[in-house]
């Protein structure tokens, strides 16, 4: 089986749309969460929303990046996907070194083109207006995967994975398995999502899981998640291929674990999350004692953070309270199908720089969780193994195991 390394990184996020900016925000704790402007389509001043903040990508102008034909046929989310994939491909020199059919594109997107969906549906339902003829290409969840392949001229396996909040992690994990197994020597993998539309925010508001203030993962007074948007992509390739062309290696992916809770459509079960972590560690040929950092799913809801902490205790026993843990969602928000990819990127950067990002927003760590949550400043560390957890609605769990590349 091949060893799989990360040789390219790309992102467009609320905390930076270059890797340098994302990295600077990640380690300085600069949050992208901010009040959002009123939605013009909202019926009243309150917008019908109990929250006022999201993590939005600012100053994005598609005309700076795409031809008009691409702009009119895509939603914001596919545009984000292309931009992040371009960066990851360019940084790795992927297209210069691999034939088009040798590269896979595996990306996660759960919601598809929400803006187009809502705009066109509102026109149709309220005034029986014509529906734009490119609504289908804008809204289909696989649009981002297709647009990356078109944009970069990639003709290998291309697919979209939709597993709610774990989509990006599942996508990277499946791409890792494909490269490891020799199905393709290289892949672009990650996630993209732009779910900050009025209708979707109202739907999340109705579930009462969004923080009326700001997300504070693992804080005793946490009161929910903060929604975000963005995209992150990684170039994965075999170590043999990377070394043969002297590519820069940012980290190594060594394991992937998946599980399902088979329990409840919104309530997580600790056993499912624990099973995914155990499988990722085992898949890496490692043991739990080697895990020295966990980038947690850490949404900031009471249910997730309590369940995830329980799962960590189930896997690591007495060592659970000693493993550095942080959720980076208080910085970049919860971007549904993209969030796992943003967090995998954060984990890669953590290993590369020997710095574990702090968990922002916490006023007091919930003592009941009994976790070593990194606070205030990033912590210098070189963990032998790091996990990146994604625990989705519907009980779909995905965990990546990564390590610093050491030859």
């Amino acid at each position, binding site marked *: 089986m091949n060893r799989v390394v990360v040789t390219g990184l790309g992102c467009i996020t609320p905390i930076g749309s270059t890797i340098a900016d994302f990295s600077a925000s990640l380690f300085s704790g600069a949050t992208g969460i901010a009040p959002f402007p009123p939605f013009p389509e909202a019926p009243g001043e309150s917008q019908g929303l109990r929250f006022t903040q999201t993590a939005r990508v600012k100053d994005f102008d598609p005309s700076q990046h795409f031809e*008009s034909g691409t702009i*009119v046929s895509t939603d914001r989310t596919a545009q984000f996907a292309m931009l992040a994939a371009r960066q990851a491909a360019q940084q790795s020199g992927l297209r210069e070194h691999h034939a088009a059919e040798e590269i896979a594109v595996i990306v996660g997107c759960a919601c598809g083109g929400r803006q187009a969906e809502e705009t066109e549906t509102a026109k149709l339902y309220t005034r029986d*207006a*014509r529906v*734009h003829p*490119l609504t289908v290409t804008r809204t289909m969840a696989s649009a981002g995967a297709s647009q990356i392949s078109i944009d970069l001229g990639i003709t290998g396996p291309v697919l979209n994975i939709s597993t709610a909040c774990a989509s990006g992690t599942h996508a990277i994990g499946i791409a890792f398995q494909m490269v490891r197994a020799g199905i393709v020597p290289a892949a672009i993998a990650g996630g993209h999502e732009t779910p900050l539309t009025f209708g979707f925010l109202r739907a999340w508001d109705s579930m009462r899981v969004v923080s009326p203030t700001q997300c504070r993962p693992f804080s005793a007074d946490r009161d929910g998640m903060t929604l975000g948007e963005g995209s992150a992509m990684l170039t994965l390739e075999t170590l043999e291929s990377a070394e043969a062309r002297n590519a820069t290696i940012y980290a190594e992916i060594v394991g992937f674990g998946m599980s399902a809770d088979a329990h409840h459509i919104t309530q997580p079960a600790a056993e499912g999350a624990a099973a995914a972590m155990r499988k990722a560690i085992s898949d890496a040929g490692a043991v739990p004692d080697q895990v020295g950092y966990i980038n947690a799913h850490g949404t900031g809801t009471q249910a997730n953070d309590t369940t995830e902490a329980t799962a960590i205790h189930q896997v690591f026993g007495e060592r659970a309270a000693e493993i550095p843990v942080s959720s980076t969602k208080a910085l970049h928000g919860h971007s549904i199908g993209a969030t796992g990819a943003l967090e995998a990127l954060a984990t890669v950067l953590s290993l590369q720089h020997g710095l574990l990002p702090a968990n922002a927003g916490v006023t007091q760590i919930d003592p009941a969780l009994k976790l070593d949550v990194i606070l205030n400043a990033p912590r210098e560390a070189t963990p032998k193994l790091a996990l990146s957890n994604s625990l989705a609605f519907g009980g779909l769990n995905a965990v990546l195991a990564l390590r610093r590349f050491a030859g």
Partner: protein
Amino acid sequence: MDDIAQRCIEIIAKSKGIPANSITLDSTFDSLNIDSLDKINISFEVEETFNIEIPDEALGTIKTVGDMVRGVAQLSQNHPPSTVTS
């Protein structure tokens, strides 16, 4: 230039992100780099603006801005312009 021509040019300019004064009735769609996706979008905006329906067979025959303006003028004779713009 009549109102229909002016509005068609504005639609093309907006869709392509180019200045309206760079477009004339003699401009071909090819010279304006209007690809198949642009054409779908422009046709839709024209249909919305003038409250018309461009027949499928007509879409393939439009090669210049003038072709489009003449076609819209013909189709508009039976339909008042719509106030809906998007």
